[in-house]
C-alpha cells in the first residue's frame, strides 16, 4: 500500500538570483510562498513538477515540498528547512524578510535574531 499523499508545493531556486521561488496556479514563479499553488493530488503534483522541469532557463532544481494550508488559505511549509527558505538567514536581515516578505512556517527559536 502506498503512503498517503501529503499536500505539496513546487519549489525551486531562481536561475539568476538563486533565491527560493514557488510555482503558482497560473504558471508563474513567485517569491512569496503565500501565492503558491498548494497541490493536494499526487497525479497533479507530478504534472506540475514536470511543467516546472520544462523551464530550465528560469529556475534550478524544482522539487515537491511538503506544505499545509495556512489560516489565510495560502501554503505554509511544514519542515523548518523550507520555513528558512521563506525567511532568509537568521543572523542578518537579508533575503526574503529584507524584501518585505512575510516568513511562513515555524523557524525554531526566532528570538535569536541579531545584527538586524
Amino acid at each position, binding site marked *: 500500500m502506498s503512503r498517503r499523499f501529503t499536500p505539496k508545493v513546487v519549489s525551486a*531556486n531562481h*536561475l*539568476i*538570483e*538563486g*533565491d*527560493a521561488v514557488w510555482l503558482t496556479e497560473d504558471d508563474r514563479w513567485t517569491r512569496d510562498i503565500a501565492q503558491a499553488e498548494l497541490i493536494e493530488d499526487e497525479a497533479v503534483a507530478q504534472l506540475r513538477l514536470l511543467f516546472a522541469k520544462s523551464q*530550465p*532557463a528560469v529556475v*534550478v*532544481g524544482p522539487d515537491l515540498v511538503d506544505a499545509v494550508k495556512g489560516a489565510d488559505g495560502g501554503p505554509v511549509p*511544514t*519542515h*523548518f*528547512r523550507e520555513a*528558512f*527558505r521563506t525567511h*532568509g*538567514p*537568521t*543572523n*542578518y536581515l*537579508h*533575503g*526574503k524578510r529584507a524584501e518585505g516578505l512575510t516568513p511562513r512556517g515555524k523557524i*525554531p*527559536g526566532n528570538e*535569536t535574531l*541579531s*545584527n538586524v
Partner: protein
Amino acid sequence: MYKYNEFDEAFVRERVRQFRTQVERRIDGSLTEEEFRPLRLMNGLYLQLHAYMLRVAIPYGTLNPDQMRQLAMIAERWDRGYGHFTTRQNIQFNWPRLKDVPDILDALADVGMHAIQTSGNCVRNVTADHFAAAAADEIADPRPVAELLREWSTDHPEFQFLPRKFKIAITGSPNDRAVTRAHDIGLRMVRNEAGEPGFEVLVGGGLGRTPMLAQVIRDFLPKADLLPYIEAILGAYNLKGRRDNKYKARIKITVFENGLDAFKADVEERFARLRSQWTGADQEILAEIEAQFAPPAFRNAPVDAYEAFRAGNGVFRAWTDVNLHPHKVDGYAIVSISLKKHGATPGDATADQMRVMADLAERYGHGELRISHEQNVILPHVHKSDLPAVWAALREAELATANIGLVSDIIACPGMDYCALATARSIPIAQQIATRFEELKVEHEVGPLKIKISGCINACGHHHVGHIGILGLDRAGVENYQVTLGGDGTETAAIGEKMGPGFPAEEIVGAVERLVLGYLEVRRDAEETFLEAFRRLGPEPFKGFLYGTEETADAA
C-alpha cells in the same frame, strides 16, 4: 610575497573567459543545469538555500592589502557588503547573482586571486599555518611548498577526477596550527639527524561522517622528493579509492580498508618508479618561489612606549594577553584580529572592516595579512611599538575583541542559515554561547577552550577536534545538538568523544555553560586547561555537568 607569473595570469584569465561564455549559455537556455553544474562548481560557484555562494581560495591563507581591499570592493559592489572567512582559508560571498559572477572572477584575477579548485573532486586549496614565517617556534616557512603544490596540482590532468575531494595542509612548526592530522595529506616540515630539511608525511585524516586522524606514512621524506611522493600517494588513491560509494570515497577509507602497510607499499613502489622522472626542475621552481617569500625588512626599535602603554591601560593589556603570539624577531608580535565579537557571526567581516585591516597591514604590518582556519585575521609582523596604534584603529572598527583561543572564539560553519546541506543552524548557537559567556565574565578565568560547531555531519566546523564540539542535527523536524568532548586539532590531536543524547536549541547554551562552570570546579588549578582536565578525569564528571545528574557530579 608570491606574485602570479605570466602563466598563472593567462591561465586564470582564460578560465574566466570560458566561464563567462558558459554563464551566457546557461542563461540563454543552451546549457541545462545538469551540464552547467559541474562547470560552475569548477569555478567555486555553489547554489545554497537563499542564493548562489562563491567560494574564493586564499592560498595558504596569505593576502596582501590590495587583495583584501578588492575583496571589500567585491562585497560591496556585488554582494551584501560582507564576506565570510571559512575553516579552509577561503572567503565565501553569500549573495552573488549568476550573471555577475564572471565580473567578480575578473576582479579577483586583477589581484591574482581565483575560485578554481575550491570545489569538485580535485586537490583543494592547500592550507598552511596562519603564523607561517612569523612564529617563534617555526622551523621553516611552509608557504613556498604550499605554493609549489598549488602550481603543481592546479589543472593537473591526472588528478581532476579523483574519487573525492582532496585536502592538503602543511605546517613548518612542531606546534601544529594547521590541523594536519585532519587532512587527506598532512605535511610537517622537520629536519633529520643530519640537519637536512624534509617532511613528516601523514595520510588518511579527515572529519565528516567517519572522523579519522591521519597516520604517518613516511617519517622523513627529503625535501626534493615531495612532488613525486605526493604524486605516488594521489596515484595510488586514484586507483584504489572507492568510486561506488560517495561516503567511502575519501582517502581515509582507502587507507583504512587496505591497511596502512598495504597502502604504503603501493605508494613506495610507485614512488620508486616515479622518482627518476623528476630531474630537479621542480626544485628550481621551488627556489624561485622561496625567493619571493623572503622575509620583510624587520626594523629595530625600542619597545618602552609599548610597555608603558600596556602597564597603564588594562583593556589594552587584556587584548595583548590573548591576541598576541610570540614572533621570531625581537620586538615584533603576531597580532590575531578576532572576527568573533560577542554576538557577531563567526568569521564575517564587513567591507569597511576589511579595508581597516588592509590599511593596518600596509601601514604597520609589512603588507601581510593571513586568514586562519579558526576564522580570524592575522597581522603576522607588527612591531610592538606600533601595537597601541593598531589596537586603537581596531577598536574603532569593532575588531579589538580580546578573546583569541577563549570560549567565545568559536568556529561555526554557515549551517542552516545558508548551507543547502545543513541539518541545523550553527551561527545562532555560536552567537548565544559567546553572548552568554560575555555576561558571565568568566572567559579569561576559564582560559584556553575551543568550541567548534558544525551544522551537519560534514563537519566543516571541525566539531570533532573541538575541546567542546557541537553538531547540529535534524531530529524529527527539530534542531538538536550533539556534544563531543576532548577533541584536539593540534600536534596532540584527538577525535572528540560523543556524549549522551543531544540537546534542543533552547538547551544547548545552558548545557555548555554547565560544562564550563563544572570544569572550573574540578580543575586542579588555574593552569590546568579544559582539555587537560578532561584527559585527566575522563568523560564521567563532564557528563554529570552536561546532564545535570548530581550523583555523577559528586562521584567526580
